[in-house]
C-alpha cells in the first residue's frame, strides 16, 4: 500500500487537525532503555514494574514483526519515530477559536456538552495517555469492585495486581505485547470480587492527541469466582472516537485480556470506529470450571483505514463456554479483518464455543478477510462457526432512496440494520450513540 509511509510522517498534510504538542513530560522520540527508565521514573514505578518493562523491551527487540498474521501496514511503522510516553500537560495553551469548524460540528452532532467539548478539543487541560474514568467507578467501588487505571492499580493494589500482571498477558505473547510491556501507560485494571455481578458495563474513556503517538494501554480484568462483568469500549466514547477520527494517523495496537475464575463471566463489548490501523483482539482466559467469556465487537473501517480486530478465547477448564460475535463494516477502500483464536486443549471436557462473524461491504472497493483459528481437541467439546459476507446492493440503496432517504441516510440505515441484532443487546443509551456515530461516519463517506 502506497499510503503507508504517510502513517508515520510527522508532518502530515495541511488541514489535518493536530495541535502543537505541549506535554510536560515527554519521553522523546524513539525507544531505548533510556526511554523505559524515563517512563518508570516519571510514573514512579516500583522496582518490579521497572524490571518488567526492561524485560519487555528486550523481548520486543528480539522478536520479529508478526508477519504471519499481522498486516503489511505494520511495516510502515517506524519504531524510532514514535513517542512512547506523553503525560498530561498542565496549562491550557490554546483557544476554542483555533479548533477547526468541522471538529466543532462533530462535537455538536454528538451532543457533547459545551464544557466537555473544550476539554476534548484540548482547550482545557489535556489527558494524553492517561485514562479518565466515569463515575461508575464510585458506584461499583461499594461492591468491592476495583476499577482503576493500570498505573493506579499497580500502585494501590499491588497484592492483586502483581499476582496477575504479566501472567494473563505474558511479555512474549507477541511483539506488540512485548512493546506494550515495556512502555505501557494507561488502560484499565478491573477486579471483581467473588459473587459480585456488575450490572452496568464498565467503560473507560481515552484520549489521544499528540501526533505520531501510539496508545499503549494495558487492560486487565480479573473476574473472581461466580462474578460477572461487562467491559465496554469505543461504543460510547465520543472522546475516543472523535479523536480517532481527527487523527487518521493513529495506530491503535492494544493488548486486552480478561481472566474468568470458576463460574465467572467476562464480557467485552468493543467498538472500533476510526483510527488508521487498529489491531485489537480482546481475550478471555476461562480458568475456572464453568467460566464464561464473551466478546461482541463492531468495527467500521472507512476509506484508508484498516480495522484488524477479533477475539481470543482460551479455554483452560472443563465446562467453559465462549461466545464471539463480530460485525465489521468496510466503506470505500476500507478494510476489515477478523482474526479469532479459540483454543480448547485435549484434556478438557464439555467446553463450548460459538463464533459468528459477519462482514458488510459498502462499496466494490471495500475489503474484508476472516481468519478464524479454532483449535479444539479432545472429545465432548463443541464448536460452532458461522461467517457471512454481504454487500449493500445498489438496488437496495435505490429502493431506499425511492422512499425519500438520501444516499447517506440509506447507507447508514443499512449499516444500522446490519449491526442491529447485536446492538439490541447493548444498553439503550449506547445503541443510540452508536447509531449517531455510524450516521456521522456515513455522511462523510457518501457523495
Amino acid at each position, binding site marked *: 500500500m502506497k499510503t503507508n509511509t504517510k502513517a508515520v510522517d510527522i508532518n502530515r498534510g495541511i488541514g489535518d487537525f493536530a495541535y502543537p504538542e505541549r506535554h510536560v513530560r515527554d519521553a522523546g522520540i524513539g525507544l531505548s532503555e533510556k526511554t523505559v527508565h524515563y517512563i518508570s521514573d516519571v510514573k514512579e514505578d516500583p522496582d518490579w514494574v521497572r524490571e518488567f518493562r526492561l524485560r519487555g523491551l528486550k523481548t520486543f527487540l528480539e522478536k520479529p514483526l508478526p508477519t504471519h498474521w499481522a498486516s503489511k501496514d505494520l511495516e510502515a511503522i517506524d519504531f524510532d519515530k514514535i513517542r512512547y510516553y506523553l503525560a498530561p500537560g498542565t496549562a491550557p495553551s490554546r483557544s476554542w477559536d483555533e479548533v477547526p469548524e468541522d471538529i466543532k460540528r462533530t462535537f455538536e452532532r454528538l451532543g457533547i456538552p459545551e464544557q466537555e467539548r473544550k476539554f476534548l478539543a484540548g482547550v482545557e487541560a489535556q489527558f494524553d495517555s492517561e485514562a479518565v474514568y466515569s463515575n461508575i467507578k464510585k458506584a461499583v467501588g461499594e461492591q468491592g469492585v476495583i476499577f482503576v487505571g493500570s498505573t493506579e492499580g499497580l500502585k494501590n493494589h499491588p497484592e492483586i495486581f502483581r499476582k496477575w500482571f504479566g501472567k494473563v498477558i505474558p511479555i512474549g505473547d507477541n511483539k506488540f505485547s512485548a512493546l506494550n510491556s515495556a512502555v505501557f501507560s494507561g488502560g484499565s485494571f478491573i477486579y471483581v470480587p467473588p459473587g459480585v455481578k456488575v450490572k452496568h458495563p464498565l467503560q473507560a474513556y481515552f484520549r489521544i492527541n499528540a501526533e505520531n503517538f501510539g496508545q499503549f494501554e494495558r487492560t486487565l480484568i480479573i473476574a473472581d469466582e461466580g462474578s460477572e462483568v461487562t467491559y465496554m469500549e469505543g461504543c460510547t466514547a465520543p472522546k475516543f472516537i472523535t479523536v480517532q477520527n481527527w487523527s487518521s494517523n493513529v495506530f491503535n495496537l492494544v493488548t486486552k485480556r480478561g481472566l474468568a475464575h470458576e463460574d465467572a463471566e467476562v464480557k467485552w463489548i468493543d467498538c472500533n470506529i476510526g483510527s488508521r490501523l487498529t489491531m485489537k483482539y480482546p481475550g478471555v482466559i476461562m480458568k475456572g470450571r464453568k467460566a464464561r467469556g464473551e466478546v461482541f465487537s463492531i468495527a467500521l473501517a472507512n476509506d484508508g483505514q484498516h480495522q484488524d480486530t477479533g477475539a481470543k478465547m482460551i479455554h483452560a477448564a472443563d465446562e467453559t463456554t465462549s461466545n464471539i460475535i463480530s460485525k465489521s463494516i468496510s466503506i470505500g477502500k476500507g478494510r476489515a479483518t477478523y482474526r479469532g483464536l479459540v483454543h480448547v486443549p485435549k484434556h478438557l471436557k464439555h467446553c463450548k464455543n460459538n463464533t459468528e462473524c459477519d462482514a458488510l461491504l459498502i462499496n466494490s472497493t471495500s475489503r474484508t478477510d476472516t481468519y478464524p483459528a479454532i483449535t479444539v481437541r479432545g472429545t465432548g467439546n463443541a464448536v460452532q462457526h458461522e461467517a457471512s459476507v454481504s454487500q449493500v446492493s445498489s438496488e437496495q440503496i435505490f429502493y431506499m432512496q425511492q422512499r425519500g432517504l438520501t444516499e447517506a441516510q440509506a447507507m447508514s440505515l443499512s449499516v444500522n*440494520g446490519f449491526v442491529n441484532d447485536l446492538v439490541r443487546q447493548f444498553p439503550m443509551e449506547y445503541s443510540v450513540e452508536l447509531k449517531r456515530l455510524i450516521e456521522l461516519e456515513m455522511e462523510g463517506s457518501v457523495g
Partner: protein
Amino acid sequence: MPLRAGRRKKAEAALASAAKPGIFWVPEMNALVVKDLHVTIAGQEIVRGLSLVVPRGEVHAIMGPNGSGKSTLAKVMAGHPDYEITAGKIAMDDQDLLELEPDERARLGLFLAFQYPSEVPGVTIANFLRAAVQARLPDGEELEATDFYARLYEKMELLGMDRSFTSRAVNEGFSGGEKKRTEILQLAMLEPKYAVLDETDSGLDIDALKTVAHGVNSLRGPDIGILLITHYQRILNYIVPDHVHVMVQGRIVRSGGKELALELEERGYDWARDGAAEPAFTR
C-alpha cells in the same frame, strides 16, 4: 422542496422554452408527464419514444407483453441510475424530474411500488417507514412517534396485515404476496402525489388481490394520480381505470377507456400492435 440554484435555473429555462409552441411539452400543471422518452441500457434501446400523461385524480393502466419496457419506464421515472435517457422529458406538476436524484423525486411526491422489492436486512418496517416519513418533514421537525404508530396500525388494518409485521425486517423472508402488500402499506403511509404500481397484483391470491385493491381504492381521490402496470385484466375489475394504454416494444401503441383491457384480453397484443399504424398518444 428547495431546489439547488442551478437546478432551478434549468427548470425555469425548460419551462420558458416549453411555452414556445412545438418545443418540449405544453405545461401540465397537475400531471405526471412523459414526453417522447428514449431509454437505453447495455447498448439496447428499451423505451423508444414513449409519451404519456397521467393527471392527478386519474388512474391509468399500462398493459403490455413481457419485456416491452414497462418496469424500465417505471424505474426511469423514479430515477434509477443504470438507465441512460437519450431523449425526451419526464415532469411532475411541471417540475423537470430528470435533473433530480431519486430521493428528491420521492420527497416531491413520486412513489414507485416495485415489481421486485428489495430486502433491507435488519431494518424493521417500522424503522424504515419512520425514517421515510421523517425525511419528508421540514428541517428541525421531529416525527411524533405515537401519531406515527397510530397511523401505521390503521393502514395495516386496512391492508389486512398483522401488527407483528412492523418489527420484521423490510421484505426479508417475505412471501411474494407479503412483499406486495408491504409496498402498498408504504404507499398508504407516504401519501404521494403520483404512484406507479408495477405489477402489484402479480403473485397475489384472490383474497389478497381484493384487499390490496381496496387499499388502493381508499387512497384514490383528486390528489393522487396512479399509473398501474399489469398483465391481467382482473385487477381492473377492482381498481377501475380511467384510461388504459397498451405498451409494445417500448411504445404506447394504443390508448382507450377501461373497455380496452377487455378487448385486449380477447384479441391479444398482435391486434393491439397491428391496429396502431402510428404510436398513439393520449391527450
